[in-house]
């Protein structure tokens, strides 16, 4: 008697778990958006963008999935079950560049379109990779944000991460290349806060003391920008010194509110999920081919041009200011 109840209970458990996943119309194209781990605001926002794209396309079903923790093994289990379901396309933000390659190769062999976005997979494991932005676009954006607030020109300083941070160094280099487009704006110093909150804070303080006429601090790092904004507030220089650069909306909401930062930039996860879905749809339906030089349509985001490594940059970093910060600060 006991055993019967017990097994019925367990069978009921698995059946009811089974009913939770609802089957959609079979003829829909099924695109799986695989993320590093579920429950991360950034990826939840990307899923929102993917749903938006699906609605626009009409005949697309989005499967938003990922492991519970950010491991390659977890993603492999997820991909295996997607292969088994014969989905039409997999768009993945990978936990590991190399470890996913054998499994994704298998997916491609079975006719599934595979693209990576945000965090890429080695070229042999995907058809193309979607970068949220590109180094030249970021380099231009950080100086543009500062220059837009300085129509008469002025003095700006850069607060970077460490002297050896590859990303930051490339962005600053790209920024210097386009300085001619912003006449009157002068970079007076570049200092390094080592991506430590306290050191970045002290470096920002030092900048304001050394350059009393400083108009803006550009921090292309999420640690530095928050520390610099705090230093500006504490020095009572809100309105005189504008802090801008790259930061996270959740961490920068206070700085926007206090006025220490007029605007800053970072990629928009909603646009990223939207574009990844549009591209996956275009490739899976045969509308576009993933090959060097190809132009792939991305709906409202325009089109993506692939380079020789089958990579492309989606857009300029997205600008956050007081008009949209409230919407995004709860997302990531």
């Amino acid at each position, binding site marked *: 008697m*006991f*055993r019967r109840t*017990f*097994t019925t*209970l*367990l*069978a009921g*458990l*698995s*059946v009811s*778990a*089974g*009913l*939770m*996943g609802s089957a959609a119309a079979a003829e829909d194209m099924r695109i799986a958006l695989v993320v590093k781990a*579920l*429950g991360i605001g950034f990826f939840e926002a990307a899923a929102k963008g993917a749903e938006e794209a699906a609605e626009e396309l009409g005949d697309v079903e989005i*499967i938003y*999935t*990922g*492991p*519970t*923790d950010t*491991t*390659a*093994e*977890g993603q*492999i*289990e*997820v991909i*295996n*079950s997607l*292969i*088994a*379901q*014969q989905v039409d396309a997999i768009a993945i933000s990978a936990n*590991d*560049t*190399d*470890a996913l*390659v*054998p499994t994704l190769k298998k997916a491609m062999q079975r006719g599934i379109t595979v693209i990576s976005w945000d965090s890429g997979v080695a070229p042999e494991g995907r058809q193309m990779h979607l970068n949220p932005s590109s180094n030249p676009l970021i380099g231009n954006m950080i100086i543009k944000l500062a220059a837009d607030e300085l129509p008469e020109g002025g003095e700006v300083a850069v607060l970077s991460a460490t002297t050896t941070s590859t990303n930051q160094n490339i962005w600053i280099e790209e920024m210097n290349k386009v300085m001619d487009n912003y006449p009157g704006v002068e970079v007076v110093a570049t200092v390094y806060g080592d991506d430590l909150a306290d050191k970045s804070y002290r470096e920002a303080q030092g900048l304001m003391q050394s350059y009393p006429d400083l108009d803006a601090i550009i921090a292309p790092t999420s640690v530095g920008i928050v520390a610099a904004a705090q230093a500006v507030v504490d020095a009572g220089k809100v309105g005189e010194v504008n802090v801008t650069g790259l930061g996270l909306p959740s961490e920068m909401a206070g700085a926007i509110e206090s006025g220490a930062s007029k605007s800053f930039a970072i990629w928009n996860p909603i646009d990223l999920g939207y574009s990844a879905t549009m591209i996956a749809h275009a490739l899976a339906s045969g509308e576009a081919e993933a090959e060097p030089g190809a132009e792939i349509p991305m709906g409202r985001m325009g089109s993506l041009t692939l380079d020789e490594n089958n990579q492309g940059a989606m857009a300029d970093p997205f600008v956050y200011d007081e008009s949209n910060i409230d919407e995004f600060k709860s997302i990531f």
Partner: protein
Amino acid sequence: MTTTTDASTGRHIPDRLRSPLEARLKSWESLLLLVAIAIFIANSLASPYFLNAWNLSDATFNFTEKAMIGFAMALLIISGEIDLSVASIIALASTAMGAAVQFGVGTPGLVLIGLGTGLICGAFNGVLVTRMGLPSIVVTIGSMSLFRGISYIVLGDQAYGGYPSSFAFFGQGYVWWVISFEFALFAVLAVIYGVLLHKTNFGRAVYAIGNNATGAMFSGIRVERVKFTLFLLTGLMSGLAAICLTSRLGSTRPSIGFGWELEIVTMVVLGGVSILGGSGTIPGVVIAAFVMGLVTFGLGLLNVPGIVMSIVIGALLIGVIALPRLWAKWRA
């Protein structure tokens, strides 16, 4: 039921209280088997993709490597000890193999290095537990951090790759049709461990130690030596799992197999092995491996989020462990 007939009275006198068949039917393993069958049926009804030879074959990869370690872990837990460093041994063995690849070591050499690293780690745990008399749970929590820590020091955020193509057979090769090398290895090991535990003196010694180590010692069993051998075996199996997993991923990162120790212990306990030692069977562990594999794959096919899977596995474990006890209490 075997009976003897008393010639003088003509009455049937049972020579056993329960027949072997009845005992077997009421055993833990048959309960678990019923659960497995129920899950299998529920899965087939819930998803049209479940009953497919290749999909089921892919699904076995979710548990084969863990089960290899699970067999040795079962013996260790029956003897009253535990090894929580198994997943870290995987990381260290994989790192050692990855480093060897950079020096041009071929596939046979890599296998030896993988197994050898596992044995050394097992011996390290074994010596600390049997020679120094330290509690195994403390020792292996320590070595869990130690072994993986070494991998992190060696690799940092880098990865080893470039494994020879013949090495891919262990994790990606097929022996016959849909039977993967890993699954075949799992089946062979199940038989070997089944015979070792249930048909040899060594196996009986393991039970004796788990039930009463002092009693076992006075019966002439070399308790420390048996325990040391079990730690060696667990290390060896972790090395073997490292070979399979590394081969399947095609690369090594220090986070490889992260969190597996608890999944393996869960599998063993679900298989009916008492966490306090002294009882449990290999067939139970085999069925538990299938149950866990079927649950995760079945739920994966329905795109149930990983966290729900963890909840189902957790509920399954607590349910299977607690309900029989509650039942016994309620009846008494």
